[in-house]
């Protein structure tokens, strides 16, 4: 079962205007750089993007925002991004801010085939407005629905041609949960290997969840907050 495609352009060729996309990564860590670049080049518009963050001005989803390809962002933290702020203030961009755990768990629910989850996050806040509240064992929980995304686009460290994925460090973040949650999941990897080369005991995402895979070249892997300590 070979899921290899030639590259980012082929992997995203059937993404159309108005679709809903999940994009993995936390800050700049684990961003599907190659697919974002291909989406910018393709110029698809009116996208709804589910992603923890919205990139910075010149990297990540920020590049798609610059081209005004995004109609709506669903995120937990949108950080420092001047173009994002401008579009939000002028009403060009719609933003739905949701708690980070809710975001992750709504992805997880989609990947586990569950229509909804119950979480205490947001009880008593504006996040709860209009949502069903259920009480279990004396505590209130919000009902939150599983995401329904046309495509999930993730970045892994290694993958094999059957779509099995291994992530590195904290770049696993939303990538592993979103990989399970797309109707079509596209994985870009730093190193694509043959079946059998990855140890089955250490696969993070089984290939059944992944529909298309390719190896990206020359990853930029930017650092957002470079913090170091002095050698003593």
């Amino acid at each position, binding site marked *: 079962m070979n899921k290899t495609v030639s590259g980012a352009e082929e992997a995203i060729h059937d993404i159309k205007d108005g679709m809903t996309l999940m994009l993995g990564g*936390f800050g700049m*860590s684990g961003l599907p750089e190659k697919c974002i670049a291909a989406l910018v080049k393709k110029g698809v518009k009116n996208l709804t993007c589910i992603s*923890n963050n919205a990139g910075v001005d010149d990297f990540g989803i920020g590049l798609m925002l610059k081209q005004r390809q995004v109609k709506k962002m669903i995120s937990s933290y949108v*950080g420092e991004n001047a173009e994002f702020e401008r579009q939000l203030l002028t009403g060009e961009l719609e933003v739905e801010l949701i708690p980070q755990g809710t*975001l992750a768990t709504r992805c997880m629910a989609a990947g586990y085939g569950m229509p909804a989850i119950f979480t205490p996050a947001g009880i*008593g*806040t504006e996040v709860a407005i209009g949502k069903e509240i259920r009480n279990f064992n004396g505590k209130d929980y919000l009902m939150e629905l599983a995401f329904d995304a046309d495509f999930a686009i993730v970045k892994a460290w290694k993958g094999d041609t059957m779509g099995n994925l291994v992530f590195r460090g*904290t770049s696993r973040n939303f990538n592993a949960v979103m990989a399970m949650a797309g109707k079509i999941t596209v994985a870009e990897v730093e190193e694509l290997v043959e079946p059998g080369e990855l140890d089955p005991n250490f696969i993070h995402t089984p290939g059944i969840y992944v529909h298309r895979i390719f190896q990206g070249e020359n990853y930029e892997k930017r*650092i957002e907050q*470079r913090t170091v300590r002095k050698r003593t």
Partner: protein
Amino acid sequence: MLDKEGIAKRIAKEIKDGYYVNLGIGIPTLVANYIPENIDVVLQSENGLLGMGPFPYEGEEDPDLINAGKQTITMLPGSAIFDSAMSFGMIRAKKVNLTILGAMEVSENGDIANWKIPGKMVKGMGGAMDLVASAENIIVAMQHVNKAGESKLLPQCTLPLTGINCVKKIVTELAVLDVLPEGGFKLLERAPGVSVEEIKKATAGKLIVEGEIPEMTV
């Protein structure tokens, strides 16, 4: 009166041997520097790491290794990495023993506001709403009054809430206070050189002062 480092030092004394701890951005991050060496503590970073270590040496930064504040970090021996859903799973399931975070306002019934100021650009709540809704033990690290000189310890929060009835303890530059289940800020300790009167003046919510209030040791 304490500076930011002093607040962090005092909070570090609340951390017990065997705790898994989540540290928020700002003063809470500084707490890591003052955890006593004779206790075993594991730091959780909600982007998917248990066992967070200090910042890397220059030249050893790894873009695949960051904390929830997007800073480059290191891992200690025995670390474990997981995805974002599992990360908030362990928070929701109360496996994380202590959450330390900053706040703009705390009310006398333990409500917290720390993510949004109406009229200002909103960046988002990140993981704060998940943490405060689930953690059993929440300590807030903050200044007692805001830049306009107004108390941040209030009868009721005025800003949009992050969570309700959740804050258990507050450490400010002036004092250590418990938030009582029945409501009210119970004064436990004074910062060095700070009088009970000064704390009363800086606290808009119900302040409970019983007996002699000791000066804290940091």
